[in-house]
């Protein structure tokens, strides 16, 4: 049957499946499916681990007090909890099915009584934006994979749109089949493509990251500070727990400790800070290494597949036509070495996936800035031919003055509030009674506030120097950010709205703030402050639909 005849028939009998006739669906994907039985075990283990750890914590005090029986209690409790979880996860597993129907993927779940009534969800193929394939450590050991479908729906489907417990090969085939059906539903299937089995599809382009580049990528993305804070929190919690278990006896000995430490408090604090920062850097390096390892991006005709992760493997396939905008991000270290990270923003449920916001898909973790355009040409041709080819405008001197004022304006206010509070509540009296603690804290706060002030001013000046705006016929381009520089390429057809706003101060200075939104939840980098009013007007006019 020719494509034309097929179309005619479809018009005549709309209820007939698009996928009848030359059905290339692999045998294994037909009919109703449940997850692999192994996933019952995996789910039960995952479910049980939380309560068991809690019980272990509860019994730890007895154990440290020399009660060996606590171990037996723990084992008994673990067996009990695990059995309950096994039964539960078996029931859930039995209830959860998926099937590829003519209209879409049909997912059923719910035990069928009370609040767990039987539910089903049909995700139409053409509305699939991204398909994420994840495998946490436990699933990886058992060789299982979960697929998560994301559509452009405003309300998130959460776990409902998840197909878990697939064998790796099966998941791969299912994903290819989903995208094939998406193409078919959108009427994009070429005649000869129909007979090609989905597995025979070859990627048009492949990028990966190895060896030295991987190490550099992990090193230049370090966030020593946040890891150090996490470490300190962990230490404090640990100490707290030890005190609770009676292993560390400091109650009522605070003064004694302070007297012992006070002559060397500054070196001790500094050394502690240095050590935590070093450790934080190391941890962050390892975390990044694990996350970026095995990074690989493949481009197919209709989708981009991004894989990465060493311990828990994740692979996301995004429909190329559904990418809302592309962001090129450079931290301060990467600005120095001229490398950047490329992400694609998509419509997704709010939340996180593998430690990244689920709306942003990492396309390339580490690429030379000059090569970004070539990379985009291979991976997302819609957004290529922009960087390096488009003429961009700079902000005027007025914007610099305003940026610096914005960066420092809080300082006099904060100081005034502090001094006012001191005057009102007589902090000086307090200072005398607890001087040993408050004085260093005050000095530290003052020093920190000045450091923060300098940092903010530097950030503001860098942001002003780097800020650019412009557009091609099809894309809006904005460059923002000082310490983290963000270059955004947003196709005009993806922008939901554009807004130009001006406060009284901005109106007097003849500048305005321009902001845009796409359907993606994230709007990072889609706002630029203080660009000249005429430029904002021009961008607005460019955005206005023509005809």
């Amino acid at each position, binding site marked *: 049957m020719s494509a034309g005849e097929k179309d005619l028939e479809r018009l005549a009998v709309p209820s007939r499946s698009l996928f009848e006739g030359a059905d290339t669906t692999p045998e294994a994907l037909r009919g109703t499916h449940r997850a692999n039985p192994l996933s019952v075990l995996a789910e039960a283990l995952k479910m049980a681990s939380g309560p068991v750890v809690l019980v272990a914590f509860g019994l730890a005090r007895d154990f440290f007090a020399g009660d060996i029986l606590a171990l037996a209690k723990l084992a008994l409790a673990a067996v009990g909890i695990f059995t309950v979880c096994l039964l539960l996860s078996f029931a859930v597993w039995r209830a959860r099915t998926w099937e590829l129907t003519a209209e879409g993927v049909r997912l059923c779940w719910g035990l069928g009584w009370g609040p767990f009534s039987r539910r089903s969800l049909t995700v139409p193929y053409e509305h699939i934006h991204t398909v994420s394939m994840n495998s946490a450590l436990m699933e990886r050991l058992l060789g299982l994979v979960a697929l998560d479908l994301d559509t452009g729906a*405003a309300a998130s489907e959460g776990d409902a749109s998840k197909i878990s417990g697939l064998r790796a090969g099966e998941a791969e085939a299912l994903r290819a089949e989903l995208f094939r059906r998406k193409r078919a539903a959108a009427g994009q299937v070429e005649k000869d493509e129909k007979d090609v089995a989905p597995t025979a599809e070859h990627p048009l382009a492949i990028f990966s990251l190895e060896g030295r580049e991987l190490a550099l990528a992990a090193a230049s993305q370090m966030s020593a500070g946040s890891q150090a804070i996490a470490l300190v929190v962990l230490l404090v919690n640990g100490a707290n727990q030890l005190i609770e278990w009676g292993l560390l006896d400091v109650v009522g000995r605070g003064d004694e400790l302070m007297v012992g430490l006070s002559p060397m408090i500054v070196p001790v604090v500094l050394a502690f800070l240095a050590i935590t920062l070093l450790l934080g850097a190391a941890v962050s390096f390892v975390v990044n290494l694990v996350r970026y390892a095995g990074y690989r991006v493949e481009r197919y005709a209709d989708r981009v597949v991004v894989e990465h992760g060493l311990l828990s493997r994740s692979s996301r396939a995004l429909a190329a036509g*559904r990418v809302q905008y592309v962001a090129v991000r450079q931290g301060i270290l990467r600005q120095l070495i001229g490398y950047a990270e490329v992400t694609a923003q998509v419509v997704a449920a709010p939340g996180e996936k593998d430690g990244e916001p689920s709306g942003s898909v990492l396309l390339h973790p580490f690429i030379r800035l000059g090569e970004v355009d070539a990379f985009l040409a291979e991976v997302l041709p819609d957004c290529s031919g922009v960087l390096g080819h488009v003429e961009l405008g700079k902000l005027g001197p007025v914007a610099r003055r305003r940026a610096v004022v914005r960066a420092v304006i809080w300082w006099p206010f904060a100081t005034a509030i502090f001094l006012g509070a001191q005057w009102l509540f007589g902090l000086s009296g307090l200072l005398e009674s607890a001087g040993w603690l408050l004085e260093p804290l005050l000095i530290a706060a003052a020093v920190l506030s000045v450091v923060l002030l300098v940092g903010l001013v530097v950030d503001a000046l860098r942001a002003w120097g780097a800020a650019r705006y412009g557009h091609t016929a099809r894309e809006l381009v904005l460059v923002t950010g000082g310490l983290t520089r963000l270059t955004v390429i947003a196709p005009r057809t993806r922008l*939901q709205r554009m807004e130009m706003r001006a406060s009284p101060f901005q109106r007097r200075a003849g500048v305005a703030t321009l902001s845009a939104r796409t359907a993606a939840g994230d709007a990072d980098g889609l706002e630029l402050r203080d660009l000249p009013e005429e430029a904002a007007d021009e961008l607005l006019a460019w955005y206005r*639909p023509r*005809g």
Partner: protein
Amino acid sequence: MSDLPSHRLDPRMLRVWYVSDIIGIVVVAALAVAAWLIVRHLGGDVFWVYLVAGVIEAICVVDLLVSPRVEYATWRYDVTPTDVDLYHGVFTKKRVLVPLVRVQHVQTKQGPILRAHGLATVTISTAGESFEIPGLAEDDANELRDRVAELARLAKEDV
């Protein structure tokens, strides 16, 4: 900002804003009396109640005197065959452009105060955000809603 949209809100909207602001002031006053009774009953210092209530009332009164008039004088909107164009704001003036292709749905809304004045609010939603045109005459609002819906239907494209 060049060539602002041409349509203005219905003049009755000014009264609606005044009425709702006055209701706000009355509610705050009622809450302040309740707080005063409770604090006095518990034997606390009533000075703080006076201070907090006074500050809030003062802000409300200033708001009543300034924002409805400025808001009304500023508000402009246009629905062209291709886009919705809005301009409004008390201090920060905002100009928003929403192409009709991006409009997902339109709705009109009427609270009791708006209904008493024969007005309605039109809300235009895109994927992610929605925008309001407050205070149009009922018929205008319905017509605008239908027009936006019709134009959005004609302008075909997907997210």
